[in-house]
């Protein structure tokens, strides 16, 4: 059962990584607008490429 002492810290590290990743994603605004990106994906690629540079700008 001493394996538990190995598994617990490892799992806690995983928990920490995923939690931090989630919090970062939320705070960077990934979940703010759930409608437009879905529609934007339907536009042809040329549009996407042209605007890629400009899209990087964040408010």
């Amino acid at each position, binding site marked *: 059962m001493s394996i538990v002492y190995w598994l617990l810290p490892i799992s806690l590290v995983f928990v920490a990584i995923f*939690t931090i990743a989630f919090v970062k994603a939320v705070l960077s605004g990934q979940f703010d607008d759930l409608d437009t990106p879905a529609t934007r994906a339907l536009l042809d690629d040329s549009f996407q490429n042209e605007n890629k540079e400009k899209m990087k700008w964040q408010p």
Partner: protein
Amino acid sequence: MKSALHFSVQLQAVSVRCLHCGQFVIGHGDFCCQGCAAVYSFIHDHGLNHYYDLRKCEITPQSPADVLPNNNFYAYCDDPNFISAYSSDGLSMKFYIEGIQCLSCLWLLEKLPEYCADAVFARVDAGSSTLLVKRSVDGSFSAVANTLARLGYTPRPLSLTDNGESFRMNEDRKHLVRLGIAAVSASNIMFLAIANYAGAADEFHYLFSWLSAALALPTLTYCAFPIYSRVGKDLKQKKISLDTPIALALIMGFALSVFQLTRGKETYFDSLTTLVFLLLVSRYILKKAQNRNLGLTSRANLAFNATVELINPSALESKFISSLSLKVGDVFMAQGNDTLAVDGIIRSGHIDVDRSILTGESEIARLSPGEIIEAGFKVLNGSAEILVTATGASTRLSQTLAQAELVFNKNNSLTDLTDKVGVWFTYITLAVAFTLLGIFIIQGDSFEGLQRALTLIIVSCPCVFGMAIPLASSLAMKNASQNGALFRDSSAIDMLYKASSVFFDKTGTLTKGTMQVIRTIPEVIQPRLLAATYALEKQSTHPVGVALRNHICQLSPLLPEWNFVAKDIPGGGRQLRNDKDLFEIKPMFQDACLIERNRVQGHYGLYVNGELSVTFELEDQVQTDIATVVSKLSQLGLNSGIISGDMKEPTLSCARIAEIPEKNVYYRALPIDKMKILESNHPAIMVGDGANDAAALNAASVGIAVRGAMNVSLKSASIYLVNSNLKLIPWLIELSKNTRNTVLITLSFSTLFNIAAATTAILGHMNPLIAALLMPLSSFTVLCITIFRNQQMSTP
């Protein structure tokens, strides 16, 4: 977004669709109006034709304004005061765009930097119908707004504070972070708890319990913080809220668990974190459902931004500033097409104003020096110097609106009732819990007492009482907005089903509102009479007047201008006196109306000195399927009626087509009469034009606006029909009934559930973990019932 695009259009035998907006063209040409032609050529000239390929919708609901704004119109966007109130960094500004429809708008708007040198970045948020624009360092916001206007959109800048958008977004993000952290700790603690319940050896039991405590700490402090702070605020005001028992349970449970932890016994971290997690989930769903509608309320409150010419006596030269920057004591120039944003007194000059937003009278008033103007007036003609007497929240319009809001908040009786019931429930629960604890302490088993009290408090938390109504009404509002009916607030949902009658305005509501001259007798009219007719109807906003004016413009575009002022004849019609003759345009009563299929025809005569000289025959089509709408309404138990300012005959013939009983038809009603009729038929629904029937819409228990600009309409009416589709009205009433039943079902369910669960807890047949799972379960059941019943609602 998608469903707002679907239109049902009655196909006409011979029809040409406008190349830009897709509406049927009346008369000749490729475009329905000047505005569409201008927008089409703009799009064409900039090589943006792909817009028309992308477009899925047959018709763009917003055809551009007939008159494109002049270059100065958006100059207010460059006023430094305005920029500081509307832009966080001076470079980016958010616009609310009326009429973002589908992919094509997204494409066109996000391409903005390619054809507008002043913009370097544009991003659409379709959910809130907003466009974020970043200007180039030497660019101007007014140029951006002008370009948007030339594309046929109506750009409305969103202020930083007004709509609280950024604040809400921040709150949403924080809520989501709390939710995520609570999920992490609840799920991990649950696994550790499984091991413990399964009988982990002492050494591990001890380790797992401590680990659970460590994992629970962020949830019980950071994630549950909003609950504590709300309860704290309420306690300061000596109030008890629905959250009080939850906060109590969390604190009590935590203390009890720590005590147990030190003794190496069973802890409650699993129940407590699960409780917090599930609470956050149900609140997040509720919040998301409500946020969509919060946006709408702020849309209705969009300010009347305008550019005004400031001509303070102290200043040497005039300058153009935003109407927002006006201060009491300033003097500015009001000109045609402005909507005034301040109260004031006219110092010199004359202006013709449309006061319908405040008075509901569509009649145009000519104001002279010394007279008072108010925010919301629309200047049609002339120019005048105006001394500002009140701005912002102290204008009469703002005060009226604030009062209306107070009334609305009071109106929602069901919410009041559930709030009270919820608070009583809380008191009873707390009293029972403490009695239970007391009894067990006396018996000497204080641990059992604490556990039962904790279980009871958790399981009988009345959160559902606070949730059922907002959830049901926001889902119903969302459903309605997808079908083209926008609600200003949820009170209308609560009022619709109570109404006993529906009154329609005639012109523009039951009829299509576009009168056309189809014949004149004699066929060729003398230029003098044409000029007289034009002068008579020059300032008219009545559909008949507009039709006559348009007809004459088509016949001979170059007419001598007459400077004689026409005025309304008290019984209907208009008159004008030049040097020698008296000209009158009046409806001809003797043969006033003929019904021919779905058409209302009217005959109007031009009388010179009382002698009939020209007969104009006009027609206006009655909306199709009105009779079906009326019969559906009567199936639902509602009487239909017409209140019109029009003459007897056209109104009655319209009633016959619509199959509305004659006793419910009121004709030649002045705005004040309309209000009286509505009051005597209380509770009644009024369906009408957002601007011209403002007073009547406001007087009715529910006002439904079918035409007019959305933000103006939503000030007087509580519902705005995007597509003027009257068939939605019976459906909206069914929706309201359905919503009310949903609320009744969910409330009775949760009451029974709470009583049953509380009894079990008092008798000691439940442990806190089960309680923590059961309590949110009742919220989820309510959520499921509400969503299910809302989806069951058939589409109109």
